[in-house]
C-alpha cells in the first residue's frame, strides 16, 4: 500500500513539476529555444522551527520555516530563474496562491503582471499582508468564509507575503516583466521554453540569497543548459 501511495505521489509530483515547467510561452514564439537552468547553493539549508500555539488542527503543532531549501547535488529550490532581456508579450494567465496548512502554497509564485487568486482552504482566519514598493501593499483579512480573493499586481517586483495571525507564514510573489521564467524544483531545476533565439543574461533570484546571473545563447529548437551558483 505504501509503495502504491509513494508511486502515486511521485507521479503527481512529476506531473506537477512538468505542469509548472510547461508554462505556455507567448504566441508567435514558436521556433524558440529552451533554457534548462540548474541553480545550486553550496551552503547549508536554513530551517527554523516554531511551536504552534493555535489552530493546531489546521497548522500542526510545529511550524517549519524553510528559508533556504537545498536538495540533492546542492540544488536550490524556490529560486526564480528569468530572462529579463527576452521580448515576448505576457499571456493573460491567473496565478494562484493557496493558504493551506498555514503555509503559502507554493512558497514562491511567479507570474506576469495581472491578477493573483488568493485561496484560503484552511477554514480559519488568515490575513494577506504584502510588502511591496512598486505595487500598492495590502493588508486584507481573509476570514474562513472568504475562500477566494483576487488581487492585482501590475508592476514587476518581488512581493513578500505574510500573515500576521500566523507569523511564520511566508511566501513570495515574483511579478515578472515577461513570460520567460521558472521556479526551481526540489532539485534546483527550472525549464524556460519558447525563448526567442538570441544572447541573454539569465537571472536567478532567491529570497534570502539575492541575485546571480549568467550569459547564455539560445538557439532555435535547441536546449541550452545553464548552471547558476548562488552565494551568500
Amino acid at each position, binding site marked *: 500500500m505504501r509503495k502504491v501511495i509513494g508511486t502515486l505521489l511521485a507521479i503527481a509530483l512529476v506531473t506537477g513539476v512538468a505542469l509548472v515547467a510547461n508554462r505556455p510561452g507567448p504566441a508567435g514564439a514558436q521556433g524558440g529555444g529552451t533554457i534548462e537552468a540548474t541553480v545550486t547553493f553550496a551552503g547549508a539549508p536554513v530551517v527554523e522551527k516554531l511551536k504552534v500555539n*493555535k489552530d493546531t488542527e489546521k497548522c500542526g503543532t510545529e511550524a517549519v520555516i524553510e528559508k533556504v531549501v537545498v536538495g540533492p547535488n546542492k540544488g536550490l529550490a524556490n529560486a526564480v530563474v528569468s530572462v529579463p532581456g527576452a521580448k515576448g508579450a505576457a499571456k493573460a494567465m491567473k496565478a494562484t496562491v493557496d493558504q493551506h496548512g498555514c503555509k503559502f502554497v507554493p512558497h514562491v509564485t511567479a507570474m506576469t503582471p495581472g491578477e493573483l487568486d488568493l485561496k484560503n482552504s484552511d477554514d480559519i482566519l488568515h490575513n494577506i499582508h504584502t510588502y511591496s514598493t512598486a505595487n500598492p501593499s495590502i493588508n486584507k483579512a481573509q*476570514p474562513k468564509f472568504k475562500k477566494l480573493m483576487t488581487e492585482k499586481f501590475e508592476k514587476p517586483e518581488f512581493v513578500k507575503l505574510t500573515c500576521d495571525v500566523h507569523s511564520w507564514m511566508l511566501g513570495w510573489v515574483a511579478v515578472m516583466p515577461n513570460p520567460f521564467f521558472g521556479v526551481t524544483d526540489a532539485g534546483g531545476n527550472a525549464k524556460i521554453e519558447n525563448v526567442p533565439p538570441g544572447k541573454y543574461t539569465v537571472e536567478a533570484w532567491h529570497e534570502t540569497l539575492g541575485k546571480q546571473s549568467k550569459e547564455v545563447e539560445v538557439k532555435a529548437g535547441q536546449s541550452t543548459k545553464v548552471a547558476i551558483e548562488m552565494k551568500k
Partner: protein
Amino acid sequence: MRSPVLAVLAAVVLGAPALAAAQAGDAKAGKAVYDLKCIGCHGEKGDGKGPAAELLMPQPRDFTTGLYKIRTTANKVPWDQDLFRIITDGMPGTSMPSWAVLPDKDRWNLVAYIKSFAADKFKEAPKKLELPKEVGSSAESIKRGKEMFEAIECHKCHGAEGRADGPSRAELKDEWGHPIPPANLTKRWTFRGGASRTEIATRLAAGVLGTPMPTFIDSVEKPEDIWHLTNFILSLGPESPGYATLVTVTAVSDAIPDDPNADFWKKLTPNNIPLMGQVIVDPRNFDPSVDLVSVRAVYNDKEIAFHLTWDDPTQSTEDPAKKLFADGISLQFPPQPSSGPERPYFLMGDASDAVYLLRWQNGKGVTEATANGPTKIAAIQGAEASGKAAYANGQYRLVMKRPLVSKSETRPTFTPAVFMPVAFQAWDGGAGEGGTKMSLTSWYYLRLEEPQSSRRFVIPPIVAILTLAVMLLVVRVANRRA
C-alpha cells in the same frame, strides 16, 4: 465657493465628515515649529529616530514612509485633516500628546512639513472611504456583532473577551519589525484613533496601516456587519474609566466571600485607579503593562477585604530559566495611620519610614511584608492575610482579606471614618516586569464607611421638622409684631 454660507451649506448637504476644513500649510514655516516641538521624538530627518525614541513604546512615527495608522481614506494616503487631527488631539495610549496649544496655522504648517518627508507618497490623491449605511446599536445588532467577531476571529489577536490576550499576541510586529500589542477592546479610551462609533467603524473597515490590523470592509459577510461589530465592541467596556479619587470601603454585616467570581462582588461599584510605569529607580519601566486596577473593598466587624480586578494578557509564574517573573499586585499602607498629613515615601517607603504591603504573587498567594524601599522588602512572619485569585480571558480577579484590627506595630488597624493612605503596585511577569519594573500609583486615600445605623432615617426628619417649626414660629412672631 463664493460665500462662506454656501460653503457651510455644501458641507451640510454633502454630509462632509466632522473634520476641519483643510488649509494649505507652509512647509517652511512648519519646519520651524517641527524643529522646536517634534524633533525630539520624530527626529531631524522625520524617520522617527529622535533622541527620545528608544524609550518610547509605541515608537514615534517614521514620516519618511508616508504611512499613517489613522486615516479616514480608502487608500493609503491620509487627508490633510487626518494628520491635523492627530496633531491636535494626540494619540491616546501613546507618547503623542495633543498639540492643541499651538495655533491652528502652526498645525497646518506642520501637516505640510511632515508630508514633505514622503512627498512622492502624497502624489496620489486620498480616496474617500465609503462606510456602509450606519446601523444603530440594539441588542440584536450587538448579538450579530458578536457572531461576526467570532466568525472573522478577532479573538486571534484581541482575545475572546477583547482584552488583547489572543494567541497571536506575542507574534505581532509592525512593518518596522517592532513588537506591537493588539488593542484592548474593553478600554476604548486607549484607542489610538479615537473611540467614537464612526472612528471604530473606520478602523475596522480600512485597517490600521503599518500594523497587523487588516482591512475588513470586503471581509465581512455583509457590509453592515462593520456596524454590528462596532456596536459589539462598544458593548465590551465603558466609554471612560471614570477614575476614582477615593477608595470607599463598604460596611457589610454578612460574611465576606473568598471567591473572586462571587455575585457579591459584582454588586459593588468599582473604584478605578490608574497606574503608571515606575521611572524613578533603575531598572525603570517605560512601557507598563498594567494601567488600571478596579478596587472593590468591604469590611465587617472582623475583617477587611479587597477585591481587585486588572487586565494582564499573559498568566505567568516565576520561571528563572525562561526569565519570567510572577504576576503580582500589592496594596501599600503606612504601618500605622498618622494623624497629620505626613506619609512614608510613596515608592515603598525609605530607610526611616517603612510601609506595610498586602500583596499577592501568582504561585505564592497572599503575603504581608514590610518595605523600606523597593528593594528592601521583608516578609512579616505569622500570616494573618489570606486570599484567592482567578484568571480568565486576560483578566485577574483577586480577593485579599485581613483582620480589621492588628496588635502588631508593623500592620495597620483599619478604623471607620478615618482617612487611610493607600497606594498600589502591579507586575505583569509575562511582560518581563519584576522588582522595580512595575506599575504604581502615588498615595490615594481609603475610607471605611461608617456602619449604617437606623439613625440616618430618624435624625434628618427630626431636624427638618424642628427647622420648619422654628420657621413657622418666626413667621408668626413677625406677623404679630406687624
